[in-house]
């Protein structure tokens, strides 16, 4: 029984990690209809920002998170302004090619700058956890989980209540009408991309404390983020949290009671089922066009 509870807790915490790095992907897709293939590279840059702050200046990874948020947010904003804005209204294939190109550029640039070395952020409290009865809870993952919930809720509130959040929603729902009402669509798109990237950078910084990081780590993360977002509903922000948690728990239970190989396969099995049976995601609020 304790193994089952431990598997649930492990899955829940892993789900938090998935949700943390998928919500930015969902936001960008929801507003611009862009499947951002270089999403994983934003995670990588966020992780490396934290790593360099820690290894060069001995700044605690959690204190270095603002650097990850700002640096990745700025990169996202600039790439959107310079490149994505030019293809945002083009057929989807053009934006896939554009973001794929950025993926190649960023990962190879990182490789050139930082070499293919595997790096980890190991602090005095790395891997430290606490026990609740027989259940072990790693602190860094718990923090990620809580931040994922807070980010999703904060983003949801921002889009619902804040003036700029409403402008983002307006731009995503009917951009022509939003334009007529005086909303600067290009600015909204760039800031949304920057915001999505900043959230992703935060997730990258967090996961650098327990995962191995390297320049070419990005693509698998993009694939997982895509699966999580499809599961929760494309463009539906709370869906990223739901999808992440569901995937995390399913993977953990599969790894615990079947094997780890199947836990990787389950991601794609689930993606396949959802795309066929419920393309709007598990709660039916995703965008399907």
């Amino acid at each position, binding site marked *: 029984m304790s193994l089952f509870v431990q598997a649930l807790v492990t899955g829940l915490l892993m789900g938090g990690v998935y949700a943390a790095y998928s919500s930015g992907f969902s936001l960008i897709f929801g507003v611009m209809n862009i499947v951002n293939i270089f999403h994983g590279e934003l995670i990588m840059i966020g992780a490396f920002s934290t790593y360099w702050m820690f290894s060069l200046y001995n700044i605690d990874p959690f204190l270095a998170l603002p650097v990850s948020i700002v640096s990745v947010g700025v990169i996202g904003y600039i790439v959107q302004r310079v490149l994505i804005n030019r293809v945002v209204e083009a057929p989807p294939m053009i934006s896939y090619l554009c973001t794929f190109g950025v993926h190649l550029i960023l990962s190879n640039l990182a490789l050139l700058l930082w070499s293919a070395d595997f790096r980890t952020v190991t602090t005095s409290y790395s891997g430290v956890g606490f026990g609740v009865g027989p259940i*072990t809870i790693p602190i860094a993952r718990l923090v990620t989980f809580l931040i994922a919930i807070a980010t999703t809720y904060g983003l949801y509130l921002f889009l619902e209540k804040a003036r700029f959040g409403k402008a983002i929603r307006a731009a995503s729902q009917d951009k022509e009408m939003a334009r007529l009402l005086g909303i600067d669509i290009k600015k909204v798109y760039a800031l949304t991309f920057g915001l999505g990237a900043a959230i992703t950078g935060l997730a990258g910084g967090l996961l650098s404390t327990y995962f191995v990081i390297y320049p070419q780590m990005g693509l698998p993360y993009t694939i997982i983020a895509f699966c999580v977002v499809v599961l929760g509903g494309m463009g539906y922000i709370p869906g990223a949290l739901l999808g992440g948690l569901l995937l995390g728990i399913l993977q953990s239970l599969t790894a615990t009671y079947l094997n780890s190989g199947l836990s990787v396969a389950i991601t794609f099995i689930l993606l396949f089922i959802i795309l066929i049976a419920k393309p709007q995601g598990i709660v039916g609020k995703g965008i399907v066009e």
Partner: protein
Amino acid sequence: MRYVKALLFIGIVAGFLVPSVLCAQSAKFRIGCELPLTGVFGKDGNLVKDAYTFWADTINATGGINVKGKKYPVEIVFFDDKSDKAESAKLVERMATVEKVDLILGGFGSDSVFAATPISEKYKYPMISGGASSNKLFERGFKYYFSTLGKATEEVRGCVEIATILNPKPKTAAIIGADVLFSALACEGYRSYLKKAGIEEVYWELFPISLDDYNSMMFKVKAKNPDMVLVGSHLKVALSVMKSLKEVDFAPKLVAFSYGPTVPDFVKSLGKDAEYVVAAAEWAPNMPYKDAVFGTAKQLNDNYFKRFQRYPDYVEVASIGGALVQQWCIEKLGLVPPLKEADRVKLMEELHNGDWNTVYGRIKFGADGANVDHPPIAVQVQNGKLTTVFPKDAAEQPVMYPAKPWKERK
């Protein structure tokens, strides 16, 4: 008119002679090498690149390979297979048919080398690898593939036999490993040596190398509470396993890896969390090995540090050993560049016949191309340094055993 004829004659003679003189001056061995310089094995591939570069620099510093008193420098052309085995095969084909290199140095990673060697066999290029040792590489009847490492299943012998000198002797063990050729076979090796050592195997799992989260699996291992955790690994897997062991708060009495901890980045990345870790190795700087080119094992170790500001991993020294014996064969056979197919056939035969003592230790290839003689060394991270702990007669320090629980480590 007479002068014109004389000048014309001189011009014609010069036209024939100058290129041949230039050619003779620039004659060198052009050697191709494809390695995973990026991707999941990128770090490991770059280590092997450093090793070959070190060998080439050392040889070129003396003028090059000495063939009948004449020196021929070596030039290595590196290609990146991006940790993709299909790319490995394509690159070997390119080296043989487009680049038309004189020689090919062996790559890294059993999967890549497994894919690349049918091509080198087809074009009759001897390929000696110091970074691929899966048994399946030697079961195909190939004549042109050689490995300076022992077979993967045997490479981990020291990690299990070390149990014979531990007190109290471990009674149970869990085996986990990435499901790729080398690490899966290393796990098979663990299994067979555990049986011989009378240690009960309580857990077995092979997982995809793409696995990100190890915690679910590690909690299952923890539930079995084995005395030893034996891991079939490369560097990334080894780092991930250590991170996960700490996160799930499980410190087995002994944790051993088939590969990873001997790569300098392992200790650098994990710091004190790397303490107690045991790893299979086939070379250590305190071993009594030496040759005329690189000196003693310790001298090689020190010179390598001067060149790269880090010490070599055993795979790097195994790669140097391979390049060195190939060089000696060329010198013995008196082969000069550009090498023809017939030359490479002779080279292959000489590699099968030879028996050398090198800075890496004895190299003697069996009929299947595997190195027949290699001692099962085990090293342990002690105070941030890799220390030889097994076999007992080669040990620098006794094994630190059992490992302390995570919470008791400072």
